[in-house]
């Protein structure tokens, strides 16, 4: 049952990635920016399968372009958080002592801010834009990956095969890369999948508050704000499809994460 839901998550997530790639390559029914003033607020139908917005722009095309922007930020921010966070966690766990205290205290400080607040602060300081948003979200989630990585390293560094490697004269970098890293990928993979859903939620939240991609670029959160929200009463499709897109995205990453956890960590099976 759990693995079936994991599979459903994987299928939806893959479909969204395909849509995002098409959006990024601008292989969309209409150019996402093209305005057709005469078709303002056209309901879903033959010409516009998901309807048109106030400026007569095709919602389907904008959703596809939005998918590429929203997923670009989510994927890369989680990559950033994983790369930086896991490196910090591994170094802290392996070297221990002062390195551990210094690095993890730093992580605690970042962790002491509510996520969305810190992301807001960083975007407010750097200015809006896809890359600034992804950097902000990446920084916010770095401490979580540091914590997830540090735990297994503490346990692994005392295992016999690591001690054996040390006895044979292997250096710390060799041990970290060849013996410790390959044995701690499971918790990291699960965290990456769950992290993607948080990142997508944070990205949509920031976009919703007006701190998303550059003006003119759609993202799912942007499509739920501004004039679209004001016009929802007359044209509910303006909000309906982006909402579904965000929910599908978050749901698929959550299902995938839970499924992966069941497969990779049998101890937790069925508990969540």
């Amino acid at each position, binding site marked *: 049952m759990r693995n079936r839901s994991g599979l459903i998550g994987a299928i939806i997530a893959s479909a969204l990635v395909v849509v995002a790639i098409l959006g990024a390559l601008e292989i969309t029914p209409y150019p996402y920016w093209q305005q057709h003033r005469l078709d303002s607020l056209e309901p879903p139908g033959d010409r516009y399968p998901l309807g048109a917005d106030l400026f007569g722009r095709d919602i389907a095309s904008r959703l596809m372009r939005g998918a590429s922007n929203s997923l670009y930020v989510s994927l890369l921010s989680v990559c950033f958080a994983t790369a930086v966070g896991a490196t910090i966690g591994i170094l802290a766990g392996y070297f221990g002592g002062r390195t551990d205290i210094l690095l993890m205290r730093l992580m605690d400080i970042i962790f002491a801010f509510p996520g969305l*607040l810190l992301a807001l602060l960083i975007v407010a300081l750097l200015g809006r834009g896809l890359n600034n948003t992804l950097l902000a979200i990446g920084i916010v989630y770095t401490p979580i990956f540091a914590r997830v990585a540090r735990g297994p390293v503490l346990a692994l560094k005392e295992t016999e095969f690591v001690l054996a490697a040390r006895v044979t004269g292997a250096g710390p970098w060799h041990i970290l890369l060849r013996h410790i890293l390959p044995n701690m990928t499971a918790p990291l993979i699960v965290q990456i999948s769950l992290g993607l859903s948080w990142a997508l939620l944070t990205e949509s*939240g920031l976009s919703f508050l007006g701190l998303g991609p550059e003006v003119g670029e759609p993202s799912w959160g942007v499509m739920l704000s501004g004039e679209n929200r004001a016009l929802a009463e007359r044209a509910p499709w303006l909000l309906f499809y982006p909402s579904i897109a965000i929910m599908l995205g978050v749901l698929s990453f959550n299902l995938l994460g839970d499924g992966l956890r069941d497969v990779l960590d049998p101890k937790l099976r069925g*508990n969540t």
Partner: protein
Amino acid sequence: MTRYLIHRLLTFIPTLFGISILVFGAVRLIPGDQIMAALGTEAGMLTDKQREAMEVYYGLDQPPIIQYFRWLGNLLQGDMGISTRHGPILAAILKRLPLTIELAVLSLSVALLIGIPIGILSALKHNSFLDLAGRIFAMIGLAVPSFVLGAILIYVLSVGFGTLPNSGNYTDFIDDPLLNLRQLAFPAITLGTSFAASVMRMTRSSVLEVRRESYVQTARSKGLAANLITRRHILRNALIPVTTLIGIEFGYLLGGAFIVEHLFSLPGIGRFAVFSISQREYALIQGITLFVALTFICMNLLVDLIYVALDPRISYRDHN
């Protein structure tokens, strides 16, 4: 216990320092300086003489470390600086605090009223239809962002009932409790629902775990009534981790209501933060960030302490 308390407080102080350095440093990173931070774009209109006078006033002619300690000293005396639009920053924040606290309390109540019963039922009827329904609720609750749920609520209310949840000005609880609660009901449902999902998941997994504990098996083998076992042995212990979650989530609610306050036009701290960002009032952003982060870590500390008090099995004697 005392040792743990001392240890916890000792790690609390460096974190406080860290936060203050981060917030102080962040505002120094912005294009422009503290004058820009205080005046916003109006700083461009200053004459050289005015700018010099302001530099001396803000101590910008001093090295950064002295500036930091001066700022920290002011902070400890409750002086967060002055915003050109809103006057003293701390007073401006405190003015908006009651609404945010009220919203957090109401949302938390919604979350607990929905999350705990569903979580308990779901676990007690493990793998039944009820369990499946509960888990689907949690999955959807976690996947629906507050701005989507809020937008749906506003849409349903305006189209179905021809009313808006927050039309007109916000009314204080003291002035008109009924109107106040009516204005806050939908924001609280919006914010509370996704927390209900996490409360439900935590309750469910915790009850499932406790059910497998040996003391529950013992109670069962003694022939105690199922109801009694559930009430005395399972729920009492299973709800302890839920308390921790509640504490942490309350911290998040206090600092994380930006979207819901923005969506429902409620004049709380969250909307104030979004406003100050859109107006580029860096001194305000700095003040609000610091205030929310401090509240957040104080809540976390409090939760840790309550946790010790609640659970007799936990002893922090061996901690470190």
